[in-house]
C-alpha cells in the first residue's frame, strides 16, 4: 500500500489541446479517491498516467514516495481494472487470476493460495475453470476485480468498472466494492462519470472538467458547497436549478423573490436551488411561484418538472445531447423533489418555499461560488 502523488502533471496528445492541465493531487494511503467528470474531462488520462500506460508531458508522478515517471507499468506495482474488463479470452478464470503472479515468478503454492483467497472473497470458486466467454457480465466484472486483488498491489486503479453492468447489478457491485475496500484498505483511484458512484464510494472526490480540477473534497462537502457553477450543475441528481439574479442593497433578488443578503453587491449572479430543497408551501415565507409540467413519481420521492418566472443559467456540465425543457416566454424550467404525499397534478400552480440558508450563489463573471 502507498500514497499516490501527482504534481503539476500535464498531458498533451497534440500541441493545441491539453487532455490534462496542471493536475496536482494527493491520494492518501488507503484512501478511496474518485475522479468524476463528463466524458473527455481527462479523468481516464489521469488514471492511465498513474498506471504508466501514458507518459506525462510534464510534471511528476510518485507512488509510495518513489517518482515513477520513467518506470514501466509492470514495475509500478499497481493493478488496474478496465471498463471492458480486458480478461484474457484464451485463459480460464483461474489462469486469468494467476497470470499477474506468474509473470512475477510467485511460487506456485503462493499463487494457489492467493487465487483461492480472492476467488473466495468474490464468490468465483465455481467459475475457476470457465473461460471469460462463458461468464455473465457481472461474473466478468468480478474476475477483473479478482485479477487486481490477487496482486496485492500498492494501489488499485479502476476505470469505470461498473459502467457495463445493468442497473441492478451495478448497485450490488457498488456495495461489493465498498466492502472490499473497507476490508483490504488498499489505496484506490476510481474513475467514473456516474455521480452516484462518486458520492457513495469515495472518501474524497475530484470533480474534473476540460482537463482541469474543478473541486476536490469529501462528497458531502462538494455537494453542500460546490466551488463553482460547473460543480453545482454536475453534482446532484436531478441537477441544481440555476437562475439569473442579482445581489444589491442587502437583498438577493430573483424575479419577485427577495432574500436577505449580507455580502458585497454583485450585479450578475446565478442563484442555485437544489431540487430537494424546494418544497410546496402555503405559509407566506420566501417562495417561488411554480407551474407543474411533468410529474415523475419514483416511489420514495416525486420529481416534479415545471417552470417559474426568470432566466435559467447554464452550468457547463450539461450533456451535449441534453435538451433543456422548453419554457415559454420569460419562464425558466426548474425541477423540484417532493415527498410522495405532496404529489401534484400536471398544470397545477403552487408556491415553492425557499430556505435562505440553502441558497447557493455564484458570480456569473468568474463562475465561482460567492461565500458568505
Amino acid at each position, binding site marked *: 500500500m502507498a500514497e499516490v502523488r501527482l504534481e503539476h502533471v500535464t498531458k498533451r496528445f497534440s500541441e493545441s489541446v491539453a487532455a490534462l492541465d496542471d493536475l496536482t493531487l494527493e491520494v492518501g494511503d488507503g484512501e478511496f479517491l474518485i475522479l468524476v467528470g463528463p466524458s473527455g474531462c481527462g479523468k481516464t488520462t489521469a488514471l492511465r498516467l498513474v*498506471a504508466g500506460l501514458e507518459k506525462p508531458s510534464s510534471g511528476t508522478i510518485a507512488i509510495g514516495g518513489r517518482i515513477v515517471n520513467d518506470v514501466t507499468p509492470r514495475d509500478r506495482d*499497481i493493478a488496474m481494472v478496465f471498463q*471492458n474488463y*480486458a480478461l484474457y479470452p484464451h485463459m480460464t478464470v483461474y489462469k486469468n487470476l494467476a*497470470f499477474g503472479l506468474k*509473470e512475477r515468478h510467485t511460487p506456485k503454492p503462493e499463487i494457489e493460495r492467493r487465487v483461492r483467497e480472492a476467488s473466495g472473497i468474490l464468490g468465483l470458486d465455481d467459475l475457476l475453470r470457465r*473461460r471469460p466467454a462463458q461468464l455473465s457480465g457481472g461474473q466478468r466484472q468480478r474476475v477483473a476485480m479478482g*485479477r487486481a486483488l490477487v*496482486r496485492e498491489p500498492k494501489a488499485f486503479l479502476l476505470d469505470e468498472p461498473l459502467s*457495463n453492468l445493468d442497473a441492478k447489478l451495478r448497485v450490488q457491485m457498488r456495495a461489493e466494492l465498498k466492502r472490499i475496500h473497507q476490508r483490504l484498505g488498499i489505496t484506490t483511484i476510481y474513475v467514473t462519470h456516474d455521480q452516484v458512484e462518486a458520492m457513495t464510494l469515495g472518501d474524497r472526490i475530484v470533480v474534473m472538467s476540460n482537463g482541469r480540477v474543478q473541486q476536490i473534497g469529501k462528497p458531502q462537502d462538494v455537494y453542500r458547497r460546490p466551488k463553482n457553477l460547473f460543480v453545482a450543475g454536475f453534482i446532484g441528481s436531478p441537477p441544481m436549478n440555476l437562475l439569473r439574479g442579482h445581489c444589491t442593497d442587502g437583498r438577493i433578488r430573483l424575479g419577485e423573490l427577495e432574500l436577505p443578503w449580507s455580502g458585497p453587491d454583485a450585479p450578475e449572479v446565478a442563484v442555485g436551488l437544489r431540487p430537494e430543497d424546494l418544497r410546496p408551501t402555503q405559509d407566506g415565507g420566501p417562495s417561488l411561484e411554480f407551474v407543474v409540467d411533468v410529474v415523475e413519481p419514483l416511489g420514495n420521492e416525486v420529481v416534479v418538472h415545471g417552470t417559474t418566472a426568470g432566466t435559467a443559467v447554464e452550468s457547463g456540465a450539461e450533456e451535449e445531447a441534453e435538451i433543456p425543457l422548453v419554457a415559454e416566454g420569460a419562464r425558466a424550467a426548474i425541477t423540484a423533489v417532493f415527498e410522495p404525499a405532496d404529489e401534484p397534478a400536471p398544470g397545477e400552480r403552487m408556491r415553492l418555499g425557499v430556505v435562505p440558508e440553502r441558497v447557493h450563489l455564484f458570480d456569473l463573471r468568474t463562475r465561482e461560488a460567492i461565500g458568505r
Partner: protein
Amino acid sequence: MSEIQTIELAARAAEEPKGQPTAGRFLFSSWHLVLIPIAVVMVIPLVWMLVTSLQTLDETRHYPPTIVPTSLEFRNYADVLQQAPFARWFVNTLLVTIACVAGNLLFCSLAGYAFARIRFFGREVVFVLILATLMVPFQVIIIPTFLIVRTFHLIDTLGALILPNLAGAFGIFMLRQFFRTLPVELEEAARIDGASRLGVLFKIVLPLSGPALATLAVITFMWTWNDFLWPLITIYSPNNMTIQLGLATFQGAHQTNTNLLMAANVMSMIPVLLLFFFAQRYFIRGIATTGLKG
C-alpha cells in the same frame, strides 16, 4: 459494449474451428450450373496426370490421349523412387518448407507486432517501404539476392533456399493488420500484470491470433513447396534439389518419360493436396482478407 464483443469474437476465433452445420449443405443453387463446368475444366488436367502416371510409356504417346486408363502400372511409382533420389528431394523440400514456415511465423509476428503496437521513430515510413517491396517482381531482385546468398557461401545448399525466405512483406502486413484488430486493453492489462513486450506478444497476442498464423503458415507452405525459379538458380547438385527442381530433371533434352514424370508429380502434390484438404478455409481467408497474391 462493442469492445467486449470484440474480445469475445477474438476468443471465439482463437478456439478450434467448428464444423459447418450439415443442414443445407447439398441444396442446389443456380450457381452450380456455372460452377460445375468450371470445376470439370479444373479437374481434367489432374485426372489426366493421374491416369498418365499409371500408363506404360507407349500408351503415353498414343494420340488422341487416353483419359480412361487401360492398364494400371503402379510400378511407375517404384521406378521413380529407384531412378531418382526422390526421397532425398522430398526431405530437402520438407526441411526448407518447415524452416520457412517457422521463420515466417516467428519473424513476421515480431515485425508485425512492432508495426501494429510499438510507437517508434520512422515507423510509418519503414512500414510503407516494406509494403512497397510487394510491388517488386521477384525477377528484378534475383541477381542482388543471388549475390548476397553467394557472399554467405550458401550457393548450392539448402541455406540458399531458406535464408532469403525467412520473413516476407506479405506476412508482416497480414499479421500487423490482424494484431491491430485485437483490443489493446488486453495488452495493457498484461503489461500492468507484469508481462514484458515479448511476453505480451507470446502469451496474449499470438494465442489469440491462431487463424491469422494458420493462414500465414498455409500460404508460406504452398509458396515454398511449389517454388521453382529460385531453386533452379541456386541449386545444381542433385542431392540438394527440391522436388520441383528434381521433377524438371525428368524432362530430358531428347526424351521425356512422361509416365514417370507424372508419377513423380502426383507424389509431389500429395502434401499440398492434404494441406489444401484440411486447411482450405485458411487459404480462402488469406486471399480474401488481404487481397494479395495467394
